[in-house]
């Protein structure tokens, strides 16, 4: 019986690929490219083995990477193990191979051709072939996945996937554009696993572990408690040039530890292996403890040079009060970010000037965040006819300038209470609402907030459409949380998305950033152009410990920058012995400035 099934499904694949083949032939005048000459960045002396124990603050709401509630922070752990056709070298930004060995650009400037690596395997052992890429399109366009963003993206942006044979495909965009490789290097989706999608997709695949192509796969989990990833024995890509000596630990174990302080206690006990020290209090004070002084654990301060998260206060323009530009400006001028940086964050953070910093030529360096300025607040508010009430808060027609700021991390409270007190001077009442990170994010996506205190993840080029295009405004579950709805902005964004010319795109990008500043729905707060982490002594890193674009030195999965660390059993035993006999090592604080760039525009602080 199983044999028959295999035969039938094999037949289906043949027929389908046959269908796709009809009428399409691989052009002969394309030039196949590959890249095996960029420098490797993993350490050649890395060894395999060990378990990385790490933690997440809340258990993911689903293992799906599309559909309702899937856009959480754990999603990246799953997605990072889904390789794409190609990737970007984190230091040179050149294209490097992943699931494809070769690629070629079409003459029409909207298609790319790929030769697939015939060795590529799904985690269930099935080969990764052309139809799996065609299925990605079918999958992402399906209404059953309840993911309007993806439905739209894979319709509006990607036109088709042409399967020439099992190992040669073309991905065609809907229009000619530059940076084609950033868009067309799609992921395969296992057709044999999903079969035909139905309306039960969302519920059915909530906790399913989907076959993937990366180095790890979830092999055990308990809802609400822990998730364990296991390294694949004989992973098909382990000897590829840019993957060699990476993804070294055998297991990555995420435990749910719901309290950030508990996390630190777990680290101190050695129950988790690494701990982020970006928060100043941790780097300066909390690490003044024996395990660091005796050298059992180490501190690393690594400067990177990468896109900065758009962190700050996002104003919901569907709220009546924020419909007025003057009020938004006044709000920006009432946020004393500089005071928070100097007196709460010890001057360790840098002022973020705008939402898209660190994007190279795509960043508009002339945009400056609005500084704390009571006179300007006064000016803006009076211009809109507001007056100060008896308690000093602005009032107009029975409305008070009292807004709720929602945030997800207890650790951020000291920053917000200072902002709140300073805002009071400016006549604005900021009510603080802290909730669970997942709940806070859900609130933001549902546009059910006044002011959102949050940061977005970044991408290689600035993404404007999802955050600022009116098509994503006034509806839940889209990233336009500020409900920006501005015809001029739409025009600019459409032009940016449609432009083929890199120079024009850069010009438009700068214009859009100026426009974001002019609308004033975002108050940029901090940027952190570095990573600080603590790890136990037996964790080893290459030299330099990260790449230009590393977001973490101990990211276990990221296919471009992750998995560079490894476990040293000898050092582990030695450290445990030393701890038992109370023998101390030299304390280690490793500061790496390989990629340090002076802050853009000089006095960003």
């Amino acid at each position: 019986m199983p044999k028959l099934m295999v035969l039938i499904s094999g037949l289906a694949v043949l027929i389908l690929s046959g269908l796709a083949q009809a009428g399409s032939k691989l052009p002969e005048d394309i030039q196949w490219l590959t890249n095996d000459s960029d420098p490797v960045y993993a350490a050649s002396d890395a060894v395999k083995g060990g378990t990385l124990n790490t933690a997440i603050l809340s258990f993911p709401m689903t293992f799906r990477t599309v559909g309702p509630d899937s856009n959480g922070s754990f999603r990246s752990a799953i997605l990072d193990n889904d390789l794409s056709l190609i990737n970007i070298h984190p230091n040179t930004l050149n294209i490097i191979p992943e699931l494809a060995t070769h690629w070629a650009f079409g003459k029409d400037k909207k298609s790319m051709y790929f030769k697939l690596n015939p060795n590529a395997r799904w985690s269930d052992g099935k080969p990764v072939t052309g139809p799996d890429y065609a299925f990605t399109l079918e999958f992402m366009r399906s209404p059953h996945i309840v993911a309007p963003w993806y439905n739209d993206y894979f319709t509006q942006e990607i036109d088709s996937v042409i399967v020439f044979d099992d190992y040669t495909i073309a991905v065609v965009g809907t229009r000619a554009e530059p940076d084609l490789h950033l868009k067309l290097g799609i992921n395969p989706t296992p057709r044999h696993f999903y079969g035909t999608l139905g309306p039960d997709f969302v519920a059915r695949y909530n906790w399913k572990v989907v076959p993937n192509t990366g180095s790890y796969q979830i092999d055990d989990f308990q809802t609400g408690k822990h998730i364990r990833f296991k390294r694949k024995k004989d992973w098909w890509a382990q000897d590829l040039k840019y993957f060699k000596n990476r993804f070294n630990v055998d297991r990555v174990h995420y435990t749910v530890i719901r309290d950030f302080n508990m996390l630190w206690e777990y680290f101190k006990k050695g129950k988790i292996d690494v701990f982020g020290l970006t928060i100043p209090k941790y780097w300066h004070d909390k690490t003044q403890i024996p395990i660091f002084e005796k050298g059992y654990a180490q501190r690393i301060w690594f400067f990177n040079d990468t896109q900065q998260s758009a962190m700050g206060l996002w104003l919901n323009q569907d709220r009546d009060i924020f419909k007025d530009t003057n009020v938004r400006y006044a709000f920006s001028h009432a946020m004393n970010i500089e005071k928070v940086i100097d007196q709460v964050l010890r001057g360790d953070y840098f002022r973020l000037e705008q939402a898209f910093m660190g994007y190279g030529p795509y960043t508009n360096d002339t945009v400056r965040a609005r500084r704390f300025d009571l006179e300007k607040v006064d000016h803006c508010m009076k211009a809109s006819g507001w007056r100060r009430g008896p308690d000093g808060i602005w009032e107009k027609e029975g409305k008070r300038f009292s807004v709720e700021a929602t945030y997800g991390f207890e650790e951020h409270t000291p920053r917000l209470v200072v902002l709140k007190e300073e805002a009071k001077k400016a006549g604005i009442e900021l009510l603080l609402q802290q909730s669970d990170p997942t709940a806070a994010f859900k609130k933001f996506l549902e546009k059910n907030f006044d002011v959102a205190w949050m940061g977005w993840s970044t991408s290689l080029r600035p993404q404007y459409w999802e955050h600022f295009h009116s098509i994503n405004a006034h509806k839940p579950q889209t990233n336009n949380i500020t409900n920006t709805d501005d015809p001029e902005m739409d025009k600019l964004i459409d032009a940016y998305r449609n432009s083929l010319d890199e120079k024009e795109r850069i010009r438009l990008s700068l214009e859009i950033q100026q426009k974001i500043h002019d609308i004033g729905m975002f108050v940029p707060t901090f940027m952190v152009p570095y990573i600080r982490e603590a790890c136990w002594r037996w964790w080893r890193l290459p030299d330099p410990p990260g790449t230009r674009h590393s977001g973490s030195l101990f990211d276990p999965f990221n296919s471009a920058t992750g998995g560079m660390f490894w476990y040293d059993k000898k050092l582990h035993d030695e450290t445990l012995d030393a701890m038992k006999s109370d023998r101390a090592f030299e304390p280690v604080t490793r500061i790496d400035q390989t990629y340090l760039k002076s802050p853009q525009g000089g006095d960003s602080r």
Partner: protein
Amino acid sequence: MTLSPLTRKKLQRFKSIKRGYYAFILFATLIVISLFAEILVNSRALAVHYQGRYFFPIYGAMIPGTTFGLDYPYETNYRELSRQFQIAGGADWVWMPPVPFNPLENDLQTDAYPPFPPSLKDRHFLGTDTSARDIVARLVYGFRIAIFFSLTLLVVNYLAGVTVGCAMGYWGGKFDLFFQRIIEIWSNIPFLYVIIIISSIVAPNFFLLILIMVFFGWTSLTWTLRTVTYKERAREYVLAAKALGASDFRIVFKHIIPNTVSVIVTYAPFSVSGGIVALTSLDYLGFGLAPPTPSWGELLQQGWDNMDAWWIVGSVIAAMVLTLILVTFIGEAVREAFDPKLHSTYE
């Protein structure tokens, strides 16, 4: 109003239990003082004398700095004003409260990072918390919130609990049976989970939190009241009242409840301490009143995070222990004073 001899005897007995009596006086004083916390602990001055005029900023609208010839339109910083007047040496003066901070302001310094240790010079008598807010101020205002929270909770809880409990005991039968089952089911709803769910949707305010806690708290008293009412109902005076044609309502409220009051009163102090502990633990867990409301639970949380800042955890634990001991002393004394064994005679 005249007190029945029995009640007078109970009160006398309560007074004679010195420990409980003094605890009660001290506790009542603390509550009264906390009502006037604005006069003792505040960043606003008690009185300002400026260019021949007097200002009393404590109660009332905020006075912008421009009123005193300063260059800012927001609320006057009276500590700073006082310093300036002293330097100027004129006839102007500022009279500050003993603790010149309000519980929300951040007294940040340029060369150091909070929490700051206790300092007489800065008038942070118990130091500051991690956001440089004065701990005395947070404790005092936190106490006021906690105690009134707990008292309000008590009143509402008892209103619901006594009414339903009495009704169950008085009518008995199917009504009793039905409500017993309802309450059993009710008390099986996990309280903490519901709080977590609700506070993840809305930030609970004072009254919402009371509502939630009453929702789960009223059941506990019903059992006792039901039993006591059953007992009282069988007594002759109830029978007599019934024979005279008194309504159910009158019998319950005029005759039965006054006779169960000793039970209610005995429970009350322990409910007060229960309420304080509940609010503190909810705040500690982050599901209580929204920050930056001054709260003991939040201080406790900070203390736990910053064990090396001993003054945070020390102050709040000392304050909690003191309050809870006072309430417990009162409770014990009340229980003893109202102990029916001393007053009832059995045939």
